[in-house]
């Protein structure tokens, strides 16, 4: 909106600066955008087009086909999508993804926000706590998975602790039991995500004007009221970032599940992402896998666009 204004304002001034020669003036008028900027825009776009957009578009097309990766794909229309309706593994994966979104997303927001509130004030040694909470973010998820698999293994740390505190009856094959596998994977995923969300909120809290708190204090607001009526409304911008991060991270959560359970035992901890991967690269049903990818894409888009549109409306 504003850019159009500046352009028209700058337009007539350009020839004057050019020294009066009409040919040069013309050229500089059409070439207002410097070639360097064009290069900066179009070279990355070309790279992106080949490596991101083009495969993505192909994915949409493949979702409408049956393809084994060897022969030519055969067009089946929306057959893959109607197959999903009757696919029990898809339903489990969808349900698990919803559980994941709620538990992983919800708890990491609550946990991350709580930690940020606790650790926002500069006290002695607070840096150590912040660093400790952030450390898991530094580890690769595959490493995290390895560590937690050792915790969960039979007679491992978790079992030992449960036995020591007299809860030996709760000992289970955590990752091998279909009732516990999904939750056993959510815990390490949260262990990591809470640190990440905490950092986002800490940054947000730093940006809140301290004068607002002072004013609230003067008005006699309690700590709880200050959090509720000052902090949270002030963090609106951060919230939208956190929400996007959480939704995208939940829907693309793959590495931790794959390296801990591979979606097993017998598909009980399958997420849409792991199901997509195993359908594509283990069962080589690339058409069906692409259809699953489209579903994941639409889900992410729906959640995020829904939020963005609402946020945008509120602001204008």
């Amino acid at each position, binding site marked *: *909106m504003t850019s159009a204004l500046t352009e028209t304002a700058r337009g007539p001034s350009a020839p004057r600066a050019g020294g009066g020669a009409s040919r040069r003036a013309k050229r500089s008028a059409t070439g207002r955008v410097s070639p360097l900027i064009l290069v900066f825009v179009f070279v990355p*776009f070309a790279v*992106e*087009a080949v490596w991101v*957009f*083009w495969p*993505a*578009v*192909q994915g949409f*097309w*493949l979702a409408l*086909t*049956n*393809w*084994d*990766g*060897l*022969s*030519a*794909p055969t067009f089946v229309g929306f057959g893959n999508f109607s197959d999903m309706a009757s696919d*029990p*593994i898809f339903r489990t994966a969808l349900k698990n993804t919803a559980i994941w979104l709620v538990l992983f997303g919800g708890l990491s927001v609550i946990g991350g926000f709580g930690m940020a509130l606790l650790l926002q004030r500069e006290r002695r040694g607070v840096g150590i706590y912040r660093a400790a909470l952030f450390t898991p973010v530094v580890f690769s998820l595959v490493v995290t998975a390895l560590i937690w698999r050792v915790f*969960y*293994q*039979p007679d491992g740390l978790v079992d030992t602790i449960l036995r020591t505190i007299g809860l030996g009856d709760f000992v289970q*094959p*955590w*990752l*091998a*039991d*279909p009732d516990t596998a999904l939750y056993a994977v959510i815990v390490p995923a949260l262990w990591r995500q809470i640190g990440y969300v905490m950092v986002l909120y800490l940054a947000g809290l730093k940006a809140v004007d301290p004068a607002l708190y002072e004013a609230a204090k003067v008005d006699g607001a309690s700590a709880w009221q200050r959090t509720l009526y000052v902090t949270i409304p002030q963090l*609106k*911008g951060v919230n939208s970032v956190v929400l996007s991060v959480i939704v995208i991270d939940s829907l693309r959560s793959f590495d931790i599940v794959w390296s801990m359970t*591979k979606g*097993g*035992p*017998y*598909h009980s901890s399958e997420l849409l992402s792991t199901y997509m991967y*195993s359908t594509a*690269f*283990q*069962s*080589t*049903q690339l*058409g*069906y896998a692409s259809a699953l990818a489209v579903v994941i894409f639409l889900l992410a888009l729906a959640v995020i666009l829904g939020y*963005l549109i609402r*946020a*945008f409306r509120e*602001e*204008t």
Partner: protein
Amino acid sequence: MTGLAADRRTFLKGLGVLGAAALVPGCATSTKSPGSGSAATGELSLQSNLSSEQAKAAMEKLVAAYNKTGGAQVKLNTVASEIFRTQLPTYLTSANPPDVYTWYAGSVADSYAKKDLLLDVTSVWDGLGNYPKSMQTLSTSTNGQKIFVPTSYYWWGMFYRKSNFAKWGVTPPKTWDDFLQVCRTIQGKGIPPIGIGLGDTPWVASAWFDYLNIRINGAPFHRELLAGRGRFDDAKVKAVFTRWREALPYFDPKGKSFPFQEATSALLAGRTGMFLIGTFFADSAPKDALDDIDFFQFPIIDPAVPVAEEAPTDGYFASRKAKDPDAVKKFMAWLATAEAQETYVQNSSGTAIPANPDGKAADTALVKKGKAMIEGAAELTQFFNRDSSDALQPTADAALTKFLDKPDQLDQILKDWQVAAEKVFTA
């Protein structure tokens, strides 16, 4: 924050424009992929999935030995086995594919031959008159061409520690009833009799399915079933599971949680009694423990069924688009010689047996016994995925691990398995 929102909208708009621009070039699925093969420079490329340390070193020695013979120079390209498996279709369909590949004999090779992607190496087989009939059959495609050159095989068996069996006072059983008796005795000593490792390696359970099926219904039925010409909810398949259920109480409950490598450790440490596994387990076992290891043949259930054994066969095939087919065939003919196979076997972990009957296997009692068992078998099968496809394997993993967990739901499990298998066969 208003500025941010406006930016976001422009950003989304821009994204739409860029996306539309990306759409313009067209819409088709041409499997173009960067070929890792070499141009026709008198050099052959060999794509290998033998990425474990010992096997990789053995392959390097093998290729170096061939390059000294003065034929076309072979360039070895070792790829991690999981990547190799998922990329193989891409390699073979690319415009400029690698020439020669390590892979498995039987149905898994034939599936590529059916798509006309493999080089006909019938002429190589003219010089392989001493190979047994079973190897020939495994290397022949549906349309009668030889498409594969086998170089080694290994066997599956019920492995145990000799010292532990002596301590528990049990002897290797021959029949199913004897086997269950042995299980009861070992369980009486407080040890889980049957080890298994399903966490991360659920395919290990397929060995039990394969063996019970070839012992009860015979190898031909097994092969037909795995080729999609039978049904998993068949009463004959159900009979397999009914038998299996008799042994279920003797399985190590912890086996669900760890992979077969840890199940190997459990066996060696005496925490389980026996373990149905392929000889590759020896790769992750300490050498001194191996001297105490022995195996027995999977127990006979129905004496009327011709005895079949699992003998997964490894070897090579070549791309139909190989730049220099004559050089490829010369190389594959060399790979089929006893000398080449001995070079590989001596430098690798040593439990593989050369496919060439004249090739000498490692001189240990264990390998001799294994070789004798395979040679005495009336029929050979490969393994679940090799007799069907890698695509069918996950359906078996889901069905079998569920059965081990919830044997009561057998009917539903078999029904689900059939549905999942049909999807794979029609994909």
